[in-house]
């Protein structure tokens, strides 16, 4: 296949110095006044194989609106789209490796055929030393629908907890730490 002219261009690391280039207008705040849905904070910390903070990563999230519809032409579900919600956010990690988004809890979206997926947020991680974007998902701990989620069911049971965001007591704050390597390594997907 490599002899055909149209093969994906090789991926390269983001490097450490992207901050002046990639400020996204909305950045880590996906919500505006008219957005429907439960306001939540999604946060976490990225660490490497030595447990050290990854201070120069870029975290991007992509999610459906509160009704479970993506703001994208290929989402042809027969339900209204929240025009006040784009669904994309971008945040660099801080000096302690942490990231934080202000968003809404997404609704459930369909999987393949008739299966439904549990509510989730798609995550893309880019950083120095990361040769290709790392794709993972954030699920909401305690959701009944997690049990039947077709993607979670592809993950060995013992590793599913790495994808679960725990809700802080009394606050709409969900936390999922991301471990790039080693003990408690986050599950990353080949998409």
């Amino acid at each position, binding site marked *: 296949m490599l002899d055909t002219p149209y093969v994906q261009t090789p991926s390269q690391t*983001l490097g*450490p*110095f992207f901050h002046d280039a990639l400020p996204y207008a909305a950045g880590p705040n996906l919500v505006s006044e008219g957005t429907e849905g439960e306001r939540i904070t999604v946060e976490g910390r990225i660490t490497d194989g030595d447990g050290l903070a990854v201070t120069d990563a870029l975290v991007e999230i*992509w999610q459906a609106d509160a009704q479970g519809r*993506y703001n994208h032409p290929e989402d042809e579900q027969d339900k209204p789209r929240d025009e006040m919600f784009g669904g994309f956010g971008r945040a660099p990690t801080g000096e302690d490796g942490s990231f934080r988004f202000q968003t809404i809890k997404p609704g459930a979206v369909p999987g393949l055929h008739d299966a439904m997926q549990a509510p989730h947020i798609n995550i893309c991680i880019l950083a120095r030393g990361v040769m290709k974007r790392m794709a993972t998902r954030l699920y909401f701990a305690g959701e009944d629908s997690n049990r039947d989620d077709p993607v979670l069911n592809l993950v060995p049971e013992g590793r599913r907890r790495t994808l679960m965001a725990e809700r802080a007591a009394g606050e709409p704050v969900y936390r999922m730490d991301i471990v790039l390597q080693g003990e408690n390594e986050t599950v990353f997907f080949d998409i």
Partner: protein
Amino acid sequence: MSQPRPYRREQSAGQPAYLYPDYKSTLKRSPSQPLITIPHTLSEVTGPVYGHSRIAPVDADLTRQHAGEPIGERIVVSGRVLDESGRAVPHTLVEIWQCNAAGRYIHAKDQHPAPLDPNFTGAGRLVTDANGEYRFVSIKPGAYPWRNHVNAWRPAHIHFSLFGPSFVTRLVTQMYFPGDPLIPFDPIYGSVTDPRAGARMISRFDMESTVPEWALGYKFDIVLRGRDATPMEG
């Protein structure tokens, strides 16, 4: 509802592995467990469709973002964004960033003792046109030392970030310059071990796109993941 149209799976032979020990930063930042392959659902075949209104023409001309002109050799970097079927990827966001002609990034943490250029930030963005074409004006970035190994130097390069139409098609890469003597010594370039694939990251000098008596031209076409030609039942 119709089923999502899946993308072709990544052709790993043309891509770097996560772990490439010659590039030291990969040692502790690469996953040790195999990735888990998941089907392409709506979550994967959709992705951010950028609002174009926020991009101004000056965002694509890195030589006109300040009161004065940056020091360096003016270049025009242009090309097409295509998918693996050779089809144009129109109206997609392309972001670039680079160091200045002396090899220094504006970033506060870049401690390379080369001069900053007050007239150069080194960041640009645009949206491809209906034919997937793009055109940036900039200055040629310099080489710079880094601490990966003794006497390590990065070849001149421009970082590119692209979205394409879906979460799957997201790509961050680097564009190199033809004939750069540092390329064979660079472990980031070398992480793409297939030489034919590596060559796809090197732009070509293009007399056509030079601007006479003003700027040199380089062409760099970028290919994003394409659809699976033979959708599988799953």
